[in-house]
């Protein structure tokens, strides 16, 4: 019952006109960036961080969550109509969705994606609502050594376990950890890796890194590989409604997708690609019409799209209850909390229940808004794809640099931004994943603090890491997750997500 009371309190916060407006702006922006190629929700939150620090924390966080959810909806539109997934989580949707669009059933594909996202998003948000308080109770009892071990699990799963290549994933992670070392050591006040540059004493801003890697790196990469051709957009023709058969074939897939997506998203495994492809193969196996797979089977859109949204909600579970981001977007949302001096975790639930529960309640509202916006307005979103590529990327770079100028108007900071842009370009060119760098920068310093806290409590005895049962178990899991991909090359087909 406590949870219901808390959620009701949260609904009161979320239903305030100002917060409703933020949620609306969030879902609109999120859908737009989901549709547009080249920008994902992680970059959008990164771009908005500097311009929102003067706003109300609850409102901006509600907006960020709306962007995250909206991005998941928007990505499906692009995947279905032009076969270019706006974000990697929509790759599975494109498989059947684009074929449905080619066959003149684009409207039904979009409808099952939107309704499925709504159903699964709502189921997963219910899951978040009830799982979060329980995890918070658990998290309160965790010591610093347990947190450190948990972060080790996140480091490994985000970089090595599900990536294309564990070595490349870990390389990205360690580059991120290195960047996280720059600046003043919080415990002893000594400067590390600053090389006498006063600008580096405060450390590297996570927004500068994310904007450089995602916006400028992506622009450099796309420009240099000359992927210039405008894509052809499949038009939406014929009946706009799903037939009774479409409904009958979709609803089970939605629910299965939700139950595949949510737990995988909630585990510190990172990315929505695993659940979406898993859902795709499950639907293919269970379908009464397996012969239609590869020719536009509606279950193949309904399931992955549901799994996609459910995993986005799942990612918020470790983020809110443990302060543990497992995707690039979640990492940027953590940076959003930190910009207001808030640290997600059990303490935040105790100290700022209005804010946390307002955020959770707003997710229900955002889902309804997205359903209403997406079904009738799909034609409008498609028109965004008509923006010529040069202007689109020029606009992205203008916003990218503006964010940095607003945050720190210094030439040094813009220089760092450009360097990260070049790094992002080289990483794309040589096929190193981007997300582990961001997670490494944001989690590295936290992990170090927890480890040093644990060791100073234990008077320097490192055995504390294995004598605590939670920590020992988690470190064991991390070790297995690190070794497994080298042993089983079969995991190769699940590739790490960028957003």
């Amino acid at each position, binding site marked *: 019952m406590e949870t219901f009371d808390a959620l009701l309190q949260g609904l009161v916060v979320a239903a305030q006109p100002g917060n409703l407006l933020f949620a609306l702006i969030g879902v609109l922006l999120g859908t737009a960036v989901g549709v547009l190629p080249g920008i994902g929700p992680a970059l959008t939150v990164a771009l908005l961080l*500097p*311009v929102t620090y*003067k706003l109300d924390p609850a409102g901006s966080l509600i907006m960020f969550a709306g962007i995250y959810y909206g991005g998941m909806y928007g990505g499906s539109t692009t995947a279905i109509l032009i076969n270019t997934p706006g974000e990697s989580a929509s790759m599975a949707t494109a498989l059947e969705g684009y074929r449905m669009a080619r066959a003149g059933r684009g409207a039904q594909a979009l409808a099952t994606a939107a309704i499925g996202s709504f159903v699964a998003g709502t189921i997963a948000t219910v899951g978040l609502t009830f799982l979060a308080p329980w995890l918070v109770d658990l998290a309160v009892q965790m010591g610093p050594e347990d947190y450190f071990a948990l972060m080790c699990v996140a480091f490994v799963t985000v970089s090595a376990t599900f990536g*294309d*290549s564990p*070595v*490349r994933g*870990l*390389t990205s992670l*360690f*580059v991120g*950890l*290195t960047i996280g*070392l720059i600046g003043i050591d919080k*415990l*002893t006040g*000594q400067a*590390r*890796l600053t*090389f006498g540059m006063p600008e580096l004493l405060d450390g590297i801003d996570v927004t500068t890194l994310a904007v450089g890697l995602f916006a*400028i790196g992506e*622009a*450099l990469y796309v*420009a*240099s*590989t*000359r992927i210039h051709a405008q894509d052809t957009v499949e038009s939406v023709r014929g009946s706009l409604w799903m037939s009774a058969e479409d409904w009958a074939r979709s609803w089970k897939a939605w629910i299965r997708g939700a139950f595949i997506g949510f737990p995988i998203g909630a585990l510190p495994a990172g990315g929505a690609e695993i659940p979406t492809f898993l859902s795709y193969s499950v639907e293919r196996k269970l379908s009464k019409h397996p012969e239609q797979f590869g020719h536009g089977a509606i279950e193949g859109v309904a399931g992955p799209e549901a799994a996609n949204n459910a995993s986005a909600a799942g990612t918020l579970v470790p983020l809110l209850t443990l302060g543990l981001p497992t995707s690039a977007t979640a990492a940027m949302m953590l940076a959003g909390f930190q910009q207001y001096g808030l640290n997600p975790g059990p303490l935040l639930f105790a100290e700022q229940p209005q804010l946390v529960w307002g955020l959770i309640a707003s997710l229900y509202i955002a889902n309804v808004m997205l359903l209403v916006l997406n079904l009738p307005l799909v034609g409008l979103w498609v028109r965004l794809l008509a923006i010529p590529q*040069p*202007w689109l*990327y*020029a*606009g992205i*770079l*203008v*916003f990218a*640099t*503006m964010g940095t*100028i*607003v945050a720190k*108007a210094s*030439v040094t900071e*813009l*220089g760092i*931004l*450009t360097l990260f*842009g070049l790094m992002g*370009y080289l990483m794309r*060119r*040589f*096929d190193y994943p981007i997300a582990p760098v961001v997670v490494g920068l944001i989690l*590295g310093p936290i992990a*170090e603090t927890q*480890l*040093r806290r*644990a*060791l*100073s409590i*234990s*008077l*320097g005895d490192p055995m504390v890491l294995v004598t605590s049962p939670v920590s020992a178990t988690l470190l064991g899991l991390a070790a297995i997750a690190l070794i497994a991909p080298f042993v089983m090359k079969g995991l190769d087909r699940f590739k790490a997500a960028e957003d």
Partner: protein
Amino acid sequence: MQIKTKPDIPGMLVAAGLLALAGLIWWDTTRLAQRVVYGVGPDAAPKVVAIGLALLAVANFAMALRGALPARKRDDWRPLVFIVGGMLALMAILSFGGGYILATAVLFTATAAAFGRRAIVADFIIGLVVGVVTYLLFAKLLTLSLPVGPLESLI
């Protein structure tokens, strides 16, 4: 993805870079003073990261030697010059007091050119409009501070 069989020179450069970074971090820790009674000092985490990077340098080198790197698309370096040049121009204009709008317009034009546009004047005008609109929105409406130059003082 195709697998190349020849040893990969850029891959080896990546490995060398990682090793150099590891050495740099290790060297940096030698300057740190130990002021901790219990537990680990400020040099522990950098050392762990340095060792990790060194190991990864070896692993990357091994991959490059076997040529086990995904095939890369051939790419064109000229767009890079345009975009990086645009960023440098932006920094130069801002540091000489040219203001946000002008700097933005130059960056906009350079990026559009990197993507194959050749209508410099038209793009510059669009860039100015984008600059004015974002300036009004963020500096006036959201009261954020953006660098002021001659154009901004007219608004």
